[in-house]
């Protein structure tokens, strides 16, 4: 991993974001708001600094939390399905297709409704459903956001596992008389996790989009909501706040993968 | 003395792997006369495929020049090159990958004519049938898809395509190494027959020393992009001078179990020199790479030969 390529890419992306943020002006004439101090949301005006960092941290906590939950659940699910007989595996794959088809909007709204329903029946509130004021909730948004990535990750690991299981090196290890479960855990699963990193970017973009709709429906005052305010500067700075650390992460993952499996092509599929 | 058909001088082609520049071919010079077959022997990573593709001008060389029957084609643009590509044809290694999977055999064989806009549709079909028969396939192959053919048959189709334009020079890049032994013999025989019939000039690239021996008049040895030794086939195989050539020859398994008790001493091969070596004509067009120390050795061995 070299910092030089990182900064070069960062510059590239920055230029691209600047271009995109002024695209509306190019399209409809120059009437964009640029305000370095504050932004408006739902008719109210807020100070931009330093509160944007606070919102940023909050949004990213939800995002990463959901990613971790999704990853964990997906891995456990894959492991469990790998123990099932072949016929059931196909059934599980069918279920994945079904769940994958649910739009994020549907999941977020349904979850919200389920919780309200539980509250009405039992009076037990898992977590504040919508945030009206500035107090923050974590559990529900993380759960809601993790639902779809879980399914996606599950699907990817499932397919990767099936691919990995028939690779020649598995036969070689089998020829050493090593037991199936040992091979599954120590060899196959390990490589599946490695390869999962290749899909990191895809999942990330997908989750950003989910996060956005989640914040809107739950009325969470996070970074994605702020981006909706008609202020070009806010858009610019929010995007760069996301880009700077995550691009770094991508680069680290990429160089790490490149090192351990140098014969493999590293790219997000 | 025959006229040189293709002349290569100081050819270098690099490829860029990320930031690193790697040598594929460096400082290679040789010439191929009309009607002769030059074999190029090299192991994996020797740059033999790059050399072949550079000669076809599929890749642009970084340095050096390529002359085709006296005309320099090194820096020609694609437009200007097109007429030359009628006369230069290539046969590739893997017949499973070098033929378009979505086309009928007839279309594949006619394609060069279509690309070069030669003949009418009817004439093209006629020529395709003629070539199909030439390479020993049934006429009914014309309308079949490529999936119905075995590796050897596919390589025949590839040969038919290469020869339909009546080229002067064929560059064959490992044309038989993907095939079974029994099929390999058939394809080699076919190539030899056709070469004679069309009086083709051929550059035959392979890793297999026996096959190169069978096909070539002259042989060049390539290692890590450098040309190490070149000469008449007899010279190279019976009087190899470069230790690398000798080690290659010693590595061929002997096909006689009665010889197995004779132990061969492993041959020390000097490490690759960082620069392309100077080739020195030792005798009768037998060229050998030489740095100063090696020249002495060659002189010794030559003297020995004279004494014998």
């Amino acid at each position, binding site marked *: 991993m070299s910092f030089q390529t990182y900064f070069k890419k960062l510059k590239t992306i920055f230029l691209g974001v600047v*271009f995109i943020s002024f695209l509306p002006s190019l399209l409809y004439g120059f009437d964009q708001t640029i305000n370095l101090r504050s932004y408006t949301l739902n008719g109210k005006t807020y100070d931009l600094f330093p509160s944007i960092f606070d919102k940023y941290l909050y949004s990213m906590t939800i995002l990463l939390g959901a990613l971790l939950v999704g990853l964990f659940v997906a891995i456990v699910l894959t492991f469990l399905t790998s123990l099932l007989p072949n016929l059931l595996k196909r059934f599980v794959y069918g279920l994945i297709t079904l769940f994958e088809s649910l739009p994020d909007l549907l999941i977020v709204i349904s979850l919200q409704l389920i919780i309200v329903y539980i509250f009405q029946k039992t009076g037990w509130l898992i977590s504040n459903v919508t945030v009206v004021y500035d107090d923050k909730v974590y559990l529900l948004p993380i759960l809601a956001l993790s639902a779809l990535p879980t399914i996606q990750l599950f699907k990817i690991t499932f397919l990767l596992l099936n691919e990995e299981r028939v690779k020649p090196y598995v036969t070689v290890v089998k020829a050493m008389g090593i037991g199936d479960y040992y091979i599954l855990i120590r060899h196959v699963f390990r490589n599946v996790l490695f390869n999962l990193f290749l899909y990191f970017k895809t999942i990330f*973009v997908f989750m950003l989009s989910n996060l956005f709709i989640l914040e809107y429906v739950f009325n969470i005052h996070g970074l994605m909501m702020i981006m909706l305010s008609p202020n070009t500067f806010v858009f610019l700075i929010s*995007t760069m706040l996301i880009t700077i650390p995550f691009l770094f992460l991508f680069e680290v993952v990429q160089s790490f993968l490149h090192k351990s499996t140098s014969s493999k092509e590293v790219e997000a599929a | 003395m025959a006229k040189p058909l293709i002349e290569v001088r100081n050819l270098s082609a690099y490829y860029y792997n990320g930031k690193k520049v790697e040598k594929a071919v460096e400082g290679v010079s040789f010439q191929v006369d009309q009607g002769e077959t030059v074999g190029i022997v090299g192991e994996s990573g020797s740059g033999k495929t790059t050399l072949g593709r550079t000669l076809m001008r599929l890749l642009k060389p970084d340095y050096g020049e390529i002359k085709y029957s006296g005309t320099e084609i090194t820096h020609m643009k694609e437009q200007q090159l097109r007429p030359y590509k009628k006369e230069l044809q290539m046969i590739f*290694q893997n017949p499973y990958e070098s033929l378009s999977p979505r086309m009928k055999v007839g279309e594949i064989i006619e394609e060069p004519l279509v690309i070069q806009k030669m003949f009418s549709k009817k004439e093209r079909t006629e020529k395709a049938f003629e070539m199909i028969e030439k390479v020993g396939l049934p006429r009914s192959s014309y309308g079949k898809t490529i999936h119905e053919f075995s590796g050897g048959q596919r390589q025949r189709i590839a040969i038919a395509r290469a020869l339909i334009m009546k080229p002067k020079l064929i560059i064959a890049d490992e044309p038989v190494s993907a095939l079974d032994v029994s099929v390999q013999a058939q394809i080699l025989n076919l190539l030899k027959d056709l070469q004679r019939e069309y009086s083709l000039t051929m550059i035959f690239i392979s890793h297999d020393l026996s096959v190169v021996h069978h096909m070539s008049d002259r042989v060049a040895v390539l290692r890590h992009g450098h040309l190490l030794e070149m000469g008449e086939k007899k010279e190279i195989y019976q009087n190899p001078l470069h230790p690398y050539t000798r080690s290659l020859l010693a590595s061929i398994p002997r096909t006689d179990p009665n010889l197995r008790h004779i132990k061969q001493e492993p041959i020390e091969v000097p490490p690759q020199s960082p620069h392309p070596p100077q080739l020195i004509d030792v005798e009768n067009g037998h060229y050998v790479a030489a740095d100063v120390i090696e020249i002495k050795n060659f002189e010794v061995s030559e003297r020995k030969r004279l004494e014998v």
Partner: protein
Amino acid sequence: MNWKLFKQPQLLIGMLIILTLLFLSFGFQSFFTMPEEVKYLYDEDGSMIGVAPFTPTEVPPFGTDKFGRSLFHLILKGAKYTILIAFGIAILRVAAAGILAVFYHHYYNKLRTVLEDIIESTLFIPSSILAFILLAPLTVHQVQQDRGFTEILTIQCILLVLIGIPQLLSTFTKDMAKIAEKEYIISIQSLGAKPFYVYWKHILPEMASRFVLVTAQQIIQVLILLAHLGVLLIFLGGRSTFTVGDIFNEHEVFTTKTGEWAGLIGHNFQEIMLKPHTLLIPLAFFSLTIFSLNLVINGIQNHIQPTSRGGRK
């Protein structure tokens, strides 16, 4: 691509569902009559027991929206707009990206410097936000400059097409680079073929099934994007504004002009807590369409590589 593709059962089922929706939608006039708007419900005595929107149990099969229009009929009517617009945008995206990819791949060294910035940066901006930023000013313009329905719709569609292109361009270019490395492409080049010939006769046909697959995936993405935009009150073709409520509690309600599903979601969004079915039913149809498309995708993938999918060996 060949006809064997249509032997995949998943593909057939998926296509059947979508075609049925389209068929019912196009033949809407001849199959159904739009029922009367039910704004109020009365019991047997004639006293009022409810105000629209109504739940599916009150007004079967799917209840009504807040104007008392039957959701079932609205959805069927809107199906053609939703599905066809998503189809159209996806196809245009793939076609445009496919053509651009040829140039991008061919002149990679020259064009990269210009396009790489935009392609890389769209990775970090969710497409819904990107679409919102580009489309939001239009709604203002619609009111201010009184632009027509077709004009608005055209601009919106063009922008939605453009938004998807950078990502596709990058994947297609990668695919092309991979195909261009194949030996048979090199062998064609060795015959002296013009670049156009190589792309047109060999590289693009090789990618045909990939294009179909990506189009199906794009339709899904466009559908989700449309749903998001609907929630943000950006409707295809612009919006009509109604003022509802009494004098003391007056508020504006925006509805879609085309009747596409995202619009239904959008104008019912405030009912989320009270009458969730007004949101859930259009969303369920979104899910059904996406599911059918996923079936189609599975079918295509099974056709391309029969063994690697679905736990079968």
